[in-house]
């Protein structure tokens, strides 16, 4: 897609409107990737989900991949609504199941580029097993996890990424469970590409998503995002802007760092960067090879 052209087309259209009205389509160059009439989205002021989606769209545009061969799959949650806003073949699946759904899409139609876009609770609580096994098999899909450290949509309950000691609706005296370190989980499970950025690092995030879209194998990107309404308020993190400023002051960019060091502590530094970028045969490669071996009589380890 030619971004310049889209702007030429939409800018005059926009300029003819004194004011943007609900349902006016094409007021912003990005609108052609959004379903008509669905903006404004439901996300709160200062929420990081809008930035995550813009970065994904820009990366997709820059990657030059055909839009009709790109699918996005989301689960349930605030993040899960991404699928409903994107004007692609996008699927809003049941809670925790976007990865098996995406795996099916990819295996059924290998020429698709399939991206899972979902929340921390969806992918690592109810959907945790799916994540580790898709990564282990190296299914050729991309997983983007927006980590806002809680279940935003249902009112801010504790989740598997909630910081130790943090307050949520279900941990009013502070969370006493250890949290997942997502890049570490991803690397240990076998993902070939693992990166983490905050919503402040919009450009680097966009570049990472583009790399993942163009890379074969299981790619995982964690996006640390503010959730001022549910998590920020209970932990006195302030507005979304305060959280973004915090990211600016406390992010440490280090590529190829040991993911074991990427643990997050409430009030501590945030290690961001690309943790892993390697090549490995994908699930489909292995399956093809295995089938060929069997057919040519080489397969099996019997006798």
């Amino acid at each position: 897609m030619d971004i310049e052209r889209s702007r030429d087309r939409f800018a005059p259209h926009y300029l003819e409107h004194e004011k943007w009205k609900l349902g006016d389509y094409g007021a912003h160059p990005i609108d052609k990737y959004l379903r008509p009439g669905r903006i404004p989205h439901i996300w709160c002021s200062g929420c990081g989900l809008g930035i995550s989606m813009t970065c994904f769209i820009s990366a997709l545009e820059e990657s030059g991949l055909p839009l009709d061969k790109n699918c996005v799959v989301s689960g349930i949650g605030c993040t899960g609504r991404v699928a409903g806003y994107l004007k692609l073949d996008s699927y809003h699946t049941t809670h925790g199941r976007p990865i098996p759904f995406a795996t099916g899409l990819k295996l059924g139609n290998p020429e698709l580029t399939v991206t899972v876009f979902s929340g921390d609770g969806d992918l690592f609580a109810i959907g945790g097993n799916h994540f580790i096994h898709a990564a282990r098999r190296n299914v050729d899909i991309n997983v983007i996890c927006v980590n806002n450290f809680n279940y935003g949509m249902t009112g801010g309950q504790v989740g598997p990424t909630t910081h130790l000691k943090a307050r949520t609706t279900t941990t009013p005296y502070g969370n006493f469970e250890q949290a997942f370190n997502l890049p570490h989980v991803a690397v240990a499970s076998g993902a070939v590409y693992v990166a983490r950025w905050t919503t402040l690092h919009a450009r680097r995030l966009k570049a990472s998503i583009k790399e993942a879209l163009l890379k074969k194998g299981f790619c995982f990107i964690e996006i640390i995002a503010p959730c001022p309404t549910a998590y920020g308020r209970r932990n006195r993190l302030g507005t979304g802007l305060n959280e973004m400023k915090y990211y600016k002051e406390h992010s440490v960019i280090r590529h190829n760092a040991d993911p074991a060091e990427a643990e997050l502590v409430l009030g501590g530094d945030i290690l961001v960067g690309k943790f892993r970028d390697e090549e490995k045969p994908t699930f489909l490669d292995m399956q093809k090879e295995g089938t060929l071996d069997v057919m040519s009589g080489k397969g099996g380890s019997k006798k």
Partner: protein
Amino acid sequence: MKLWRKPLDADDWEPPKGKIYIIEERCKGCGFCEEFCPRKVLEESDKYNSRGYHPPEVVNPDDCVHCELCELICPEFAIFVLDAKEMESKKPKKKRGKGGGSKKTSQKKKSSKKQTSKKTKKGGRK
């Protein structure tokens, strides 16, 4: 911007210049664009949109270097930036022909395209 040494070829370069468009009704007043614009072009305005948020306003239009960070970082798709020169050159013209299938050629905005609109001033910032 302060430079500790003026680059030798500084005169050969002209920094890009952006024209900013704000879709005020979409803004939820998060302040990201105002805070993180590297040239401090934007500031919160006094006016309200219909949802009661204060959209940003352009206070230093000449300082914008068309970096597009505000566009990327706005969670509401409420702000975007176009090349200022190109937008200035866009004079009222007839319908664009053909709707041609021009492929991506270059990232630079050299080729000025046929334009439809006349009200280049309207609506951007009121």
